[in-house]
Structures are given as C-alpha cells and as structure tokens.
C-alpha cells in the first residue's frame, strides 16, 4: 500500500496487548522505569560525567594545593587537601544531583514529561523514580572522587568507603528532592540553574565544607547552624577524620563538630536531620507535581 511500510501485516497476526489495571506492582515498576531512564541517560551523556567532575577536582587540587602554603600554620600539619576532601565528596554529589533535578525542566521543555504524565501511573511514582535516579547517578559520580582518596592521604578503609557512599547517597537524595521541588515550579532551564546557583552555592560555602565550623564570627556561626548542608558535611568529615592518624590538637581544630549550646551533635542525629529534610522535600515535590495540570 505504501512504499515506506516494510510489508503488509495480516490483521490476524496483529499482536494485541492488554494494559492491566493499576496496582502497587505497576507503581513500583514505574518507579524503576523512571529511575533506569535517568541511569541510561547519564551513561549516554559522557560529557556530563566529565564536566561534573571538573569542579570538585579544581577545588581539591588547585584550591587545596594552592592555599596549602598559606594554611599550613592553622592545619597542625594536616594537608589542606586532606582537610577539604570530605567537603569535596559532598560537593561532587551536590552538583550532580542538581543537574539530575534539572532534567525535569528539560523533560518539560522537550515534552517528554507529558509522555510520563499521561501514563496510567501515579505522579508520585514519577517523582520518586526521578529522585532515586538522581541520587544513584550522583552517588556513582561520588565514587570517582572516593576512589582518589589515596592521592590526598586518606586510607581506603572499608568502613570509610561504605559510610561515605551511604552519606553521598543520602545527600544526593536530599539535594535531588530539593532540586525537584524547585524544578517543578520553574519552566525555563536558565532560571532553574540561576535559582539553584543562588541557593546551593551559598549553602555550600556556609556549610563548613571548606573550613572548620568552630570559632567563626557570630553571624557565620548562626548561618552555619541553620544550613542543612552542614549536617551532611560534618558526619562526612567525622568519617574521614576517623581514619586519619593526627594529633589531638589537629583533630580539635579541624573536626570540631556541630555544637548546640556546647553539646556536640552525634553523627546519627545529623544524618537523621538530612534524611528527614530529604523526605520532607520529596513530599513537597510530589505534592507540587500532583497539583500541576
């Protein structure tokens, strides 16, 4: 009938499909599909894998290496690169997670979001899948930075690697959830990136990823304590410093922990704060996404 179609099919052999009703299983499957799509896209996009590693490496080796001479007096003999390494571990997943969340803006711009929105699945499944996908991709990126621990004098201890991986996953999850809750409201890529830079960059600097969070000016101390990122950076630093063989003075100066009225917050509690926040932001994102037409 037409030159383009390969061969006319016998109507009797038409493969008919029946779409089953929605169930808990179909929702889980939808989460898996959205999650897997994020992974496929990440793997296909080699540029992104490389570019999102540029910034952490710049900070670690150029900033860390360059400021080393200025800082040596204050670090009690600990290399500055070693000191900021936990902060860099956090940074890597943060930026990757931000990009992952941005994909929902792309998806909207290029229309793919509609394909998902009109499928017989819950909107929440799409958001959860996106969030888990973003977290996985970011953590995968984090592994690369984790792999170079030896270069900055951090030993490859199994406990450290597992713990850091877990923390990266958690942080990436929270940041993706945050990014999604913003991305759902914003229709343009430039505005999204602008907003994220405006919020995430200051949060990162204030978090204490690049300096110890004790003995800061009062205003900075206040900001640091209310910065949610600080509660992800601190347990990461604790984890890394737990494996370092350094003097007590150095430990006190460089890994002071987060104190509230003189009480040092335990790592479990800090992790709990991040987890709760991540879940809260995910709920916000789901709620927003369900309300859009």
């Amino acid at each position: 009938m037409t030159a383009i179609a390969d061969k006319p099919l016998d109507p009797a052999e038409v493969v008919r499909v029946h779409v089953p009703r929605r169930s808990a299983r179909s929702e889980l499957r939808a989460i898996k599909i959205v999650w897997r799509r994020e992974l496929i896209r990440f793997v296909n996009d080699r540029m992104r894998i490389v570019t999102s590693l540029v910034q952490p490496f710049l900070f670690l080796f150029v900033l860390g290496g360059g400021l080393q001479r200025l800082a040596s007096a204050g670090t009690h003999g600990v290399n500055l690169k070693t000191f900021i390494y936990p902060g860099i571990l956090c940074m890597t997943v943060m930026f990757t997670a931000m990009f992952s969340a941005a994909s929902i803006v792309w998806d909207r711009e290029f229309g793919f979001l509609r394909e998902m929105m009109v499928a017989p699945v819950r909107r929440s499944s799409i958001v959860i899948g996106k969030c888990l996908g973003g977290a996985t991709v970011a953590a995968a990126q984090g592994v690369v930075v984790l792999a170079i621990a030896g270069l900055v004098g951090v030993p490859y201890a199994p406990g450290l690697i597992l713990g850091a991986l877990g923390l990266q996953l958690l942080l990436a999850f929270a940041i993706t959830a945050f990014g999604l809750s913003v991305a759902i409201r914003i229709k343009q890529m430039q505005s999204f990136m602008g907003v994220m830079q405006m919020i995430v960059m200051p949060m990162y600097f204030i978090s204490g990823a690049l300096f110890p969070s004790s003995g800061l000016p009062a205003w900075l101390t206040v900001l640091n304590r209310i910065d949610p990122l600080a509660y992800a950076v601190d347990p990461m630093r604790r984890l890394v410093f737990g494996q370092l063989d350094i003097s007590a003075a150095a430990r006190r100066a460089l890994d002071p922990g987060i104190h509230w009225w003189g009480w040092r917050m335990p790592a479990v509690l800090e992790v709990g704060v991040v987890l709760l926040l991540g879940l809260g932001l995910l709920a916000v994102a789901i709620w927003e996404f369900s309300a859009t037409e």
Partner: protein
Amino acid sequence: MSTAATQAITVESLHKQFGDFEAVKGVSFEVGAAEVFGFLGPNGAGKSTTINMLCTLLTPTSGKASVAGHDVVRERDDVRRNIGLVFQDPTLDGYLTAAQNLKLHAELYGVPTNLVAPRMEQVLKMVGLWDRRDGQVMAFSGGMRRRLEIARGLMHSPRVLFLDEPTIGLDPQTRRSIWTYIRQLQEREEITIFMTTHYMDEAEWCDRIAIMDQGQIVALDTPERLKAGVGADRVTIQTDDNEAAITALRERLGIQALIAEGAVTFRIESGEQFVPRLFAEFDPARNPDLPAISGVSVSRPTLDDVFMSFTGSTIRDAEEDPSKLRNRVMMQMMGGRR
C-alpha cells in the same frame, strides 16, 4: 448511557476556562468505534484544549466526557490505559534510541514483557522505522520522529488514538505517508482515531469532521456532506458546438450555462448525480441533433468554502495570530535539530 457501549467518545457540553478566557465553550459530539474523526479549525480554536481534556491532562471546567466507556474525570486511569496519544509538540526522549523509547513506553503502560518485542517489531515496521530502531532519536528527522511517536502511541494497543496536529510542520510527502499509516491502522487494528488539523486538505482523510472556531463546533458531518451543504458543484463540459450546447441546456434542462476558457460551465447541486442525466439527454441515439460531449468534469466545493460559509472568514484569516504559528513551527524545527 445507552450509547456508551458503541461510542468510542461521547462529549456533552464540555467547557474549559483559563482565567477569564473561555477556550472551549461547550462542545458536544460523539465518535463511533473505529471511526476516523477530525477536528478542523484555525490555531487557537480550542482543539488542543479539547484533546487534553479527553486524554485527562486537563480537567474540564464543566461538562462531561467519556472515552472508551470511561469518564475522563472520575476514571482517569481507565481512560489512560485505553488511549494512545501523539501530542502536538514532540514528546520523545532524544537521548534514547527508537527502541528504548518504545520499550520505556511499553513498560510504563505495563505491557506484558513477552509481548513487548513482537509488538515493537510490528509497530516499527508499520511506520517504516524497523531498520532505524537502534538509532538515537536525536538524529531523526521531523517526519521520522512523528512516525516514531505514532508507533509509540500504538505500543499498548489503545482503543482510541488521539493525534494532535500529527502533520504540523512536515512536508507534503511526509504528511501524505503519515495519513496512509493512519488509515491503514484504522483498518488493521479497528482503532478509533481522533485527530486535529488546521490543514483543510487533510480533513478529507477523515470519516467525519467537526469544524471548530473560537471554542465552538460550528459544523459536524462527513466531508462530502459538509461540502454538499455549501451548495452547487461546478460542472464543465467540452462540446463540438458550445453555443448549441448552451441553448440545449437552457431549453431542455433549465440550466443557465456560460462559456469560460473555451468550455461550457455551470453550477448545480450534486453535480455527480447530474452527469448521467446530462449524458442521457445528450445521447446521440436519442437526440442526434444535439452537439456531442467530448469531456466533462465536476469540481466540488472545497472545505475552505465550507469553513467560509460557517464562519464568514477563511481559515487563514481566522488564525488568531500567524506569528504564533510560525514560532511554534520554528520551535519544532529547532527541536528537530537538538
């Protein structure tokens, strides 16, 4: 409702309000099973808004609609399971291959795993993209993407397929081949097809069309009947003696004809039915003194005439803002290169 079982789509005074603006002002119609039904209207008429309400992406402000026997508000999921969609703007994932796009869709709709591969082969062959299944969609041309989107919309064997301007921005040849697929489809899979277009010539492919203007349906019928409703066809005949033919037409059939471009021409209702009568009258066996007819042509009123007669303007004049359309086509083209 008694018709719900046999009708693929029933719509009753559907309204959609955007703020102060009423985009759809109460439309009602029914689409039968396995029918190809078209919405024809200028840009901004409310075609996409209506489709989006029918496919559960927009909630109607008021009115009722059911698709494949399910209410579009109360039974969203049932509607979604039974419909396929090709949106006005592309919705493929350019980073994935054609096959990955279809697979993702099949999984999202819960197509049983053992059926995904055969069904994919079938729909891809139908649109002539089987050889390109492992190509990244980003590298596809506009026409290929449209075909892939149609294939994707069919992956889960929907009972109703919605196509919103499936051919916008495509060249005439691709447009024609897409229409061929659509008609084939309807025959093979007994699927109901609901589509919109603002190309007049395309509406001819539909079994029935609704003409929409400013949020309202102004006419609804088969293309033939709509055009017949406009009035007379134009009949042109070639004879060996035009003057004699004109006299004979006047005296014997009561028709006022005139000569234009060397042929005898006149207007008459249902011109095709008139032709046998014309030949019976001019039969040399019966009336040897009348001039012989060497050729005849009947031209129908076009849908442009139909649109004009219902709205008082041509469809191009009725486009709310031509620059908007240009922008959209441009965007699609840019999307085509992304």
